């Protein structure tokens, strides 16, 4: 099934600048794999070497943090909206 994924500025170099892309999958893990298939390199910016979501990146399904759901196993339904939100440091 298709979901919308909102891509943050630091990851747009993988998506040719697109701020939102469509991806296929039944859960968040499948979405990350689908993103990697179309935008090679993006997965390791979201997940660490053990496959877990990095500690300075949060993933939200319809605005809810997946850490408080089933993490990467959080299931999805058609039309869901995923946001990837990394920590941003700048201020000066």
């Amino acid at each position: 099934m298709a979901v919308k994924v909102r891509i943050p500025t630091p990851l747009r170099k993988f998506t040719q600048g697109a701020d939102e892309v469509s991806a296929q999958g039944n859960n968040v893990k499948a979405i990350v794999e689908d993103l990697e298939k179309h935008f090679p390199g993006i997965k390791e910016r979201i997940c660490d070497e053990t496959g877990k979501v990095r500690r300075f990146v949060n993933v939200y399904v319809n605005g809810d943090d997946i850490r408080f759901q089933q993490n990467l196993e959080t299931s999805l339904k058609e039309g869901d909206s995923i946001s990837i939100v990394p920590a941003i440091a700048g201020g000066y």
Partner: protein
Amino acid sequence: MSMRLTTDQIERYSRQIMVPDLGGKGQIRLRQARVLVVGAGGLGSPAALYLAAAGIGTLGIIDPDRVELSNLQRQILHATTDIGRPKVDSAKTKLGALNPDVQIDVYPARLEDHNASEIIAGYDFVIDGSDNFPTKFLVNDTAVKLGIAFNHAGIVRLQGQTMTVIPGKSACYRCLFKEPPPPEEILSCQQAGILGAVAGTIGSIQATEAIKYLTGFEEGLLTDRLLTYDAKTMKFHSVDVKKDPGCSACGKPATTAQKLATGASGD
């Protein structure tokens, strides 16, 4: 400090005193308030200017740097003639000229482990306008420890994010992000660029949050959510942030029995 506003003050602040949520009472609260702005840069400039203009009683500014030519595109506290001056001196001149009512305390230093508690403890609210993760986590951890509310923000390129933390009530920055990214993952303004007006938007939100908190309308604060702003698509989004009971900054320390029961390893 006098509880009454002078005729000049009533005139100066008349347009915000008219705002029903603020009123004369709110103005007096602002006059009694102390706010620390960490960083007199892209975020700290607009935040400090609006707070000074609004009549905050005492404004603290901490920044270790001097003004550089490449700062001026976004750091609107400083002018071309300030190049080479300590940013806190430039800030004090501008803010003092804008509003002589405001007491400006400056710290020409970097906020670090050894001075953070002492400096932050004197304030009612902190604006984090710092440009690096160690300082952002230090502001969070110190403010949470001292029970002082603050607003966090970060900006890069055409994007910004911000949230307000009220220790003991709302989720903290460390509930949201457990730890800073490794240095190679970080896009700083120096490396990645930033549009000055984006810093202005987020810095203005920071000042708004401070004013709302200090004047007592806490209901609509940016707590337990992170607001993200993308100037490229001109979209604002917010995502919910939940207080993490196991948070190393604001969570209750787990007992050994709880750790054994959940198999937690301090994560």
